[in-house]
């Protein structure tokens, strides 16, 4: 078995986030994810602390590490200065690099995130992009959302906003800035990280016999974006 603990310890967030867990469970008491999912951050930290590679393999291939919302409420409350949220981030990063993320339903969702947030960052220079957020995908935006989007060019000047202008809110990020952003992703391995998510997802889709292509609504994408099994939740 590979030495996952060694790989984890190369991540600075393990050094920052794990000193010595006393298993008090304060992180679990404060955790919004533990309120909702079958989830206990105390157990995650304790498992990493055991340095047992087979148990860490189970974490890397399972659903549990994907339940955290990275709000970092745990960091504030831990009496030993641990940050379970940072440990989760290190585990998730390793799970993706090793291609283990496709083994779990929640892990497989990384493709949907890469194809939305990840894609918009490089295409527009924004993490979130209003025009890409349809009411079908985001019904919580309410009926006003369609009215706003239909009328942006008449509404935004009211606020002094020039839509896709050269400066200010909702400006178009210049091609030069986007080129630099792209170069940063290339040099730091960000593009390879994206490619790896695509490649491993394709392999999984083939295994699951689900149609896979670059569309946002191909069978595999539809499955990972919408499906949530009962076992994730508290009964």
């Amino acid at each position, binding site marked *: 078995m590979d030495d996952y603990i060694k790989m984890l310890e190369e991540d600075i967030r393990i050094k920052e986030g794990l000193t010595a867990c006393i298993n008090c469970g304060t992180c679990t008491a404060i955790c919004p994810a533990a309120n909702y999912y079958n989830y206990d951050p105390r157990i995650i930290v304790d498992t990493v602390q055991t340095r047992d590679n087979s148990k860490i393999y189970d974490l890397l291939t399972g659903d549990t590490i*994907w339940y955290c919302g990275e709000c970092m409420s745990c960091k504030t409350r831990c009496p030993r200065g641990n940050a379970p949220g940072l440990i989760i981030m290190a585990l998730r990063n390793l799970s993706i690099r090793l291609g283990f993320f496709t083994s779990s339903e929640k892990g497989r969702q990384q493709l*949907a*995130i890469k194809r939305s947030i990840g894609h918009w960052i490089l295409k527009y220079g*924004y993490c979130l992009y209003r025009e890409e957020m349809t009411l079908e995908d985001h019904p*919580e935006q*309410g009926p006003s959302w369609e009215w706003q989007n239909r009328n942006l060019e008449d509404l935004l000047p009211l606020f002094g906003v020039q839509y896709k202008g050269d400066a200010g809110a909702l400006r178009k990020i210049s091609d030069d800035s986007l080129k630099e952003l792209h170069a940063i992703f290339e040099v730091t391995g960000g593009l390879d990280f994206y490619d790896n998510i695509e490649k491993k997802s394709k392999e999984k889709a083939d295994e699951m016999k689900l149609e896979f292509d670059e569309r946002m609504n191909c069978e595999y994408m539809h499955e990972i974006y919408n499906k949530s099994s009962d076992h994730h939740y508290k009964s």
Partner: protein
Amino acid sequence: MKIEGKKRLWREYQKEIAEDHYYFARSCVRQQIFPGAEQICVKILQHDLGRDVFDDPGHTTCTGIGYHTDVVQLETIMTVVARQFSLMTNAGYENFAVSCITSFGIYTEILETWHHFPETEEKTREYLRKATGREFKIPVNLAHTSDIFYKFRHEIAQKSRYKLINHNTGEPLRVVEHIGCHYAKMFPHKGVGGAEYPYVLAGLAEALGGEIVDYPERRHCCGFGFRQYVVKANRGYSISASKIKLESMKPYKPDLIVTNCPGCTVFLDRWQYAISEMEGKTYGDNGQGIPVLTFEELTAVCLGYSPWEIGLQMHNVGPEPLLRKMGVPFDPSRKYLGAGGKNIGIPEKPKVLVVE
């Protein structure tokens, strides 16, 4: 405890906030969802407070939502942040003012990491040089824009035409202040009041005449949860967390919720609409919701800006009950007009939530 002792203790919960000359970094969420809020933030700083704010179109997303949804790696986001610092350096500024709370957390985390692990800063400098040829200096001061409004809260209060006071009864309005988790939960010493006694919004609201509501789930997350909202299958996490807060604050009858995080504004506003559709439940009076305003929007209303020129018509929960209590005059017939008074139709009404 003697007053002197209290003052000494409280000093530990203060942070340095630069007096002037800010390089301004925008927020993806605030721009996309509440663009009027961010424009009025700059306008208030420049025109009402007379501060120098450099609004540089050259910066990009910090990629923070990508980092916290685990598709952007630490090395990448560190280098993107370094590029923002390079733009600040080249523009001749040294105070970095951030509109987004996720970004504020990102900048804070990265500066702390560089401080404790200098080799990560060196590596980032190498990456940035290789990718862009740029160099950078570390900001002398890092502040969230709500820190800056807090710093000038008494000046804002002095210039305000309207207060957070019920103009019929003279009673202070009841304010729920909701602070984004990444403002101070990770690095308490970087926020006003730390994580235990966060005072950045409470201080502003009190200066404007309001009374802060203390309720059991005051510090609970709004439920963004990054991947827990971005992926549709996970969104139950997000709405459940907001519902926990709304249920907890309802018995205290708040007149408004004020936020400093753009994401929290979205969720506390949008989920009130969604809960009304799903369960027929509303949290304000007469079938309306509890208005959710960002700190800039609230400040702008107090300073006398029209609610329709700062974008309050883009919220799902209408601001009208709050405006009436404050005695702010507004023209309901202009709420849904476009620029130049153009008729652009009106949005369809929600089934349950009462919207004027």
